[in-house]
């Protein structure tokens, strides 16, 4: 053992500070858990947000009332937004009737008429937009050529589900 003065490093202050840091880490850990809980809640909300979807096709009229868009048995509440019909092929002397239907009760009367629109002669602008409303039990949009040559009508529908 050496003689004289020995002054080993005094770690007591460092140990006190480590205790403070440890206590602060516990607080920070609790805060992180709270933030994680919030993130989980937000994720649940965002996962439940409806997703905008689109589908479409081309329908050639045949003189009868034909379904452009039909969802007769939705799995639950959904939000059909609109149906767009391209009437570029439609010429003077031709007439189409667009009808919108909705079912508002389960196992009841089925699809009932909501609105009827008749377009005679050249259609301008060429795109017809039928706006739809939130629905639970069924919705349909039909087209019927009532005068003139049958034509092909491209269409698309947007909905959130």
């Amino acid at each position, binding site marked *: *053992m*050496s*003689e*004289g*003065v*020995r*002054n*080993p490093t*005094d*770690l*007591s202050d460092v140990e006190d500070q480590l205790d403070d840091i440890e206590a602060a880490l516990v607080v920070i850990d609790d805060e992180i858990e709270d933030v994680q809980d919030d993130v989980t809640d937000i994720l649940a909300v965002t996962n439940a947000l409806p997703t905008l979807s689109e589908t479409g096709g081309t329908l050639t009229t045949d003189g009868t009332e034909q379904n452009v868009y039909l969802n007769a048995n939705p799995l639950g509440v959904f939000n059909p937004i609109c149906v767009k019909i391209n009437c570029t092929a439609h010429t003077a002397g031709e007439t189409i009737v667009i009808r919108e239907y909705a079912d508002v009760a389960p196992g009841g009367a089925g699809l009932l008429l909501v609105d009827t629109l008749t377009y005679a002669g050249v259609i301008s602008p060429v795109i017809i937009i039928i706006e739809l409303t939130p629905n639970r039990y069924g919705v349909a949009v039909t087209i019927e050529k009532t005068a003139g040559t049958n034509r092909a009508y491209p269409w698309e529908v947007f909905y959130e589900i």
Partner: protein
Amino acid sequence: MPDPRIFPIVSAENDYVTVTAVSTVVRPANHHRADLELVNDGDNVIYLSRGDEAVIGEGMRINPNGGSYRIGTNNMYYGAINGISEGLTNMSFSEGSLS
């Protein structure tokens, strides 16, 4: 430690002294001293002086919480050792004697 074949430690005293802001006798002179270990067991710096009254900032600085001063065969000092500190601070000691 002194070589017991040369300086057999016959007895030892183990205790502590509270060093104050006034020069305090930590260990009185002892001509039978064989070794001495002084350890600052407090939170304040202690300054040690051999013989003279201790003064803050002079002599041997002994850091708090474990700083120490050891007298052995190579630096044997028989005289009194005084200490001073800015606050009340215990200094533990173990002093071996030849008698």
